[in-house]
């Protein structure tokens, strides 16, 4: 088996002060479009047109990329919280039924029944009207 030695770049090859190339400029513009759709609290206060070097471009790219991920993570957590809340409401309602069987359950039951019956009546009536 052949083992090929791969030389490393000299330290002088790295230059975060190098002027931004057209590719990075385009990448930043695309990110700026994405940034404008983020919640205000996640937007950077960086003026993209003033970015001149690769190091500055990298910093902007990092902040917006992380913000996009953060925004999606936040939305996912909110979704999960809403789903949990939904379960919680049912639990509380169930507990209320147990705690106050006479009044609470009856009122809730009446309202639900009334709404359902109204909707059901409308649904039933529609086909009839069409016909």
């Amino acid at each position: 088996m052949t083992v090929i030695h791969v030389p490393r770049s000299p330290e002088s090859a790295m230059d975060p002060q190098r002027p931004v190339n057209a590719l990075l400029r385009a990448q930043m513009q695309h990110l700026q479009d994405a940034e404008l759709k983020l919640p205000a609290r996640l937007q950077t206060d960086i003026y993209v047109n003033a970015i001149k070097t690769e190091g500055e471009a990298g910093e902007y790219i990092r902040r917006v990329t992380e913000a996009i991920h953060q925004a999606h993570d936040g939305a996912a957590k909110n979704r999960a919280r809403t789903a949990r809340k939904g379960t919680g409401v049912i639990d509380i309602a169930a507990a209320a039924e147990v705690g106050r069987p006479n009044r609470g359950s009856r009122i809730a039951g009446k309202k639900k029944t009334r709404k359902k019956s109204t909707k059901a009546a409308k649904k039933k009536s529609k086909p009839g009207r069409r016909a």
Partner: protein
Amino acid sequence: MSPGLESLKHIVVLMMENRSFDHMLGGLTATHPKIDGIRPGLTNPDTSSAANAVSPQPLADFQGQLDPDPDHHFPAVDLQIFGGDTSPNRAANMQGFVKSYFNQRRDLKHSQKIMYYFPPEKLPVLTTLATEFAVFNRWFASIPGPTICNRAFAHYGTSFGRVDMNLLYVNEPFKSIYNRLISAKPKHTAKLYYYDTTSSTMEITNLLQHQPELFGTYPQFLEDCRRGTLPEYSFVEPNYNDHDTDRGGEIANDQHPDHDVQAGELYIASVYNAIKQSPLWPNIALLVVYDEHGGIYDHVVPPACTPDKFTASANATGTGMPFAFDRLGVRVPAILISAWIPKGTVVDRVFDHASIPATITKFFLGDYSPRSPRETSADIFIEPQAAPVDPARNLLSLDKMRTDCPDFDL
């Protein structure tokens, strides 16, 4: 069915930046004549009144030579391919590279550097992989234009009519290869690994905004290789900028001029090593390919191709002529790596980046629509497992896995 195809479960694509085939691999022709690179007699005229012939020379440097960045936007590439001829019945001749580079600095001597290529010993990683596995003699950029629209072809099989860097794919008719895979039934797995958040990805406007779960970082790619948890399809991006991190400086390794080419060599070797040392090595094929030629000389005329569903207007191309996406861009290096590929394979069929979603789709999903006309007509570089396999087209053709594949000492 060949054992190589039967074993194949994961396809990885590493897309580098802005180097032409002749520039990176052309020097191999001297020792490997089947590789269609630099031969005697290739020239480009300079801009002097005598129009002196400038020959390719093995003088390419890792850095500091191609400054300013050679123009590779649509009008410049048109000049490079057609030599400045704008007549209706013009023929491509690859005679405009020196002229195009001269336009940027008005320096006759400097403009000749666009013809420089690397002697193979300066690129031990890329040239070793090219000669050890399968190198493509006819892999072209998808468009005679810049990065973003060419990369779009690798993700979507089209650039939706764009020939520039301003892609916003909203409500477009064709799904990305990632969406196709993850929404298939049964569901497949796909990931796009960018280097780190400071470099991020060029596939920004659509997928990162709407589906960030498709993305991972390069350290995650290395970990997925080590643990054998790679998705079925992985697209790996290099580091596009020099930046500082808590761990120290991260050098750009995309090989985009004027970034250090040696850093890119190290990166390609690191991706290869991670795959070769993975428990999945028998089940992986790795494609190393460049997005476009970056304005650097290549001698092969890009062929005509099936027109796309879209047309770029004369105003959009900047040449005064519309473009129907009916011609490929300039040739780029492309190498397919697998333990099932015979050493020294040279492929002469025509490919472009639309071949990437075409191959991945065919291999994992079979028939799929809708896809762009460019993608449906693009050739595939890995035969599907389901169909009867034509041995002449199957690159993973060995009966037994190779045990002599090279290693890179990083």
